[in-house]
């Protein structure tokens, strides 16, 4: 089912928890609500589920307006952060709950529940109680319970937060598989950008109640709408500066800035992996001295000082990382930069959204 949210506002004790949110989710897509804690992402999920009331705005599920409907009548499945399993019921009764409420026949309930138990690799656990299950099993029961009534829309609140790192990876793959098999439309909330990029078809990035960017993982990563999005979905080198002589002036790094007023404030973001380290040669545009290298498993992080005291961080392959030593002088090549003006104009946002994915300018790719 497609979902549409229009001009949604939520006030709580005189503070705007959600500020004029508008977006649309296509059928069978998996969307991530990404943001730091307190950004409003969970509140929005709960409003879509009907567990909280919006202060203003409209919500459509499958074209039908639902914001006046109670959660019972929205045809959704909701997986709570701490699973919210019914402790006094067996796994079977937990999963069967929604079907029993709907007064399905016993044979149909049994058939459906066992089908789900098998799908979720929970066979043989139907008579256990929730406290007898591991965290991962509990979550799969919560999923099965939400799916039993065949919801049009599956909502998951921080589904991976309560399990440890290794299990989290398995669960992610699990949910992606399930999502594809069952042709669900689903939304999940997370504060982990890696998770959002890996699992979701589309990502909505929230900050302080505002939807800062809504797009595919690639768009979010490569053409972030705001400096916040850029720094939240990856590591960045971040500089605040002004336009000087048609260029954004970051010391030795000069970025061509079209159509920007001389002297206006700009923010510059450069991803560490877009900084290439090359052997030192005199005529290079950019030179830097290595301060520290850190081994990070499959790559190295290299912190450097540019001429003129600005610092910059690069990530390089381990083959290259091993030969770079602190105090070394190196040349740098910057593959891509992102430029933001403080007072973003709609024109800029449009421009951001229209740019082709493959564009990788040599010195300046984002400019207005």
């Amino acid at each position: 089912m497609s979902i549409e949210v229009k001009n949604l506002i939520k006030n709580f004790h005189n503070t705007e928890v959600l500020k004029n949110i508008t977006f649309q989710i296509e059928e069978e897509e998996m969307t991530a609500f990404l943001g730091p804690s307190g950004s409003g992402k969970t509140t929005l999920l709960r409003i879509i589920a009907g567990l909280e009331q919006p202060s203003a705005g409209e919500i459509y599920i499958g074209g039908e307006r639902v914001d006046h409907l109670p959660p019972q009548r929205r045809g959704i499945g909701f997986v709570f952060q701490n699973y919210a399993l019914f402790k006094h019921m067996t796994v079977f009764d937990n999963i069967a709950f929604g079907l029993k409420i709907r007064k399905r026949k016993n044979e149909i309930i049994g058939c459906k529940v066992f089908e789900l138990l098998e799908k979720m690799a929970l066979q043989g656990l139907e008579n256990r109680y929730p406290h007898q299950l591991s965290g991962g099993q509990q979550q799969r029961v919560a999923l099965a319970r939400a799916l039993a009534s065949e919801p049009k829309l599956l909502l998951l609140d921080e589904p991976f937060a309560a399990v440890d790192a290794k299990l989290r990876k398995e669960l992610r793959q699990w949910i992606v598989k399930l999502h594809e098999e069952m042709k669900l439309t689903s939304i999940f909330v997370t504060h982990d950008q890696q998770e959002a990029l890996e699992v979701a078809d589309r990502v909505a990035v929230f900050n302080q109640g505002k939807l800062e960017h809504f797009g595919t993982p690639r768009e979010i990563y490569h053409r972030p709408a705001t400096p916040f999005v850029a720094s939240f979905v990856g590591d960045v080198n971040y500089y605040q500066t002004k336009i000087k002589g048609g260029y954004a002036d970051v010391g030795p790094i000069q970025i061509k800035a079209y159509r920007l007023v001389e002297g206006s404030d700009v923010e510059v973001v450069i991803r560490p992996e877009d900084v290439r380290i090359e052997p030192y040669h005199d005529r290079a545009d950019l030179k830097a001295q290595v301060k520290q290298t850190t081994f990070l498993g499959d790559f190295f992080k290299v912190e450097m000082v540019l001429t003129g005291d600005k610092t910059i961080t690069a990530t390089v392959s381990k083959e290259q990382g091993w030969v770079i030593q602190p105090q070394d002088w190196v040349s740098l090549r910057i593959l891509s930069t992102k430029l933001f003006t403080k007072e973003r104009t709609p024109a800029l946002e449009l421009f951001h959204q229209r740019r082709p994915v493959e564009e990788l300018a040599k010195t300046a790719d984002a400019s207005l």
Partner: protein
Amino acid sequence: MKGCSSRREQDLSAIALRSILFGYLILLIILPLGHIFGEAFREGWSGFWQSLQKAEALFTLKFTFALALFTAIVNAIAGTLTAYVLVRFPVKGKTILNALVDLPFAIPTAVSGLMLLLLYGPQSPLGSWLGDRGIDIIYAIPGIVLAMIFVTFPFSIRSVQPLLLEMGQDKEEAAKTLGASSWQTFQKVTLPMLWPGILSGFSLTFSRALAEFGSVIIVAGNIPLQTQVASVYIYGEVESFNMVGAASVSVVLLILSFTLLYAQNRWLARKRRGDR
């Protein structure tokens, strides 16, 4: 080796502290408790049995048991509903209500009895109005029940409330997203999770009502075979220096109370083990 000796010291101080604690508890609780059993059986099993066979003793035990049971049932229902409303509904003046709930515990039982006596007694307008319609409250069963309900009022609420607070709303919300109506949610999800609290409130209320003295003696007086509850009976026997009679009824009350307490603890412990 040194490591061992420092452990030894800890053990010693633990033993000393335990001894003091046990000593205190023995002097204060065990010794008096043992003595009352001794007194009840001073004239042997038959003496104990005879004391209980007296019409007044038999009546008072059955009478108190029945009224306490009734009180516990009323308060379990009213208390659970009150707790639910206090926790889950956006009720204005919640703070005041919450404070009101605890009042009966802060009122001396003799004062509670006096309050009911003054309100429903024959001298008061409400009491005489009810009396004209043939409804006697004071010096009759309704008065005793009112007194018992009054003094035990907070138990059920305070047993259920923390469970409701602790369980949060997510399980109820889950039931709703699965299609359950408010009533189905309460009945199938909330209520089953509240049973430990309801039962614990029930048994606290019951054993407290069984034991009530101050308020009942003032409201119901001391009329053998009519309004005499067990505590009042014991007091009467003590006044007339019939210690064996007093001790015998006491022992029956104690056994009832302890059994209830024990059963409840066992049940809760099993439940808790199951829940974690």
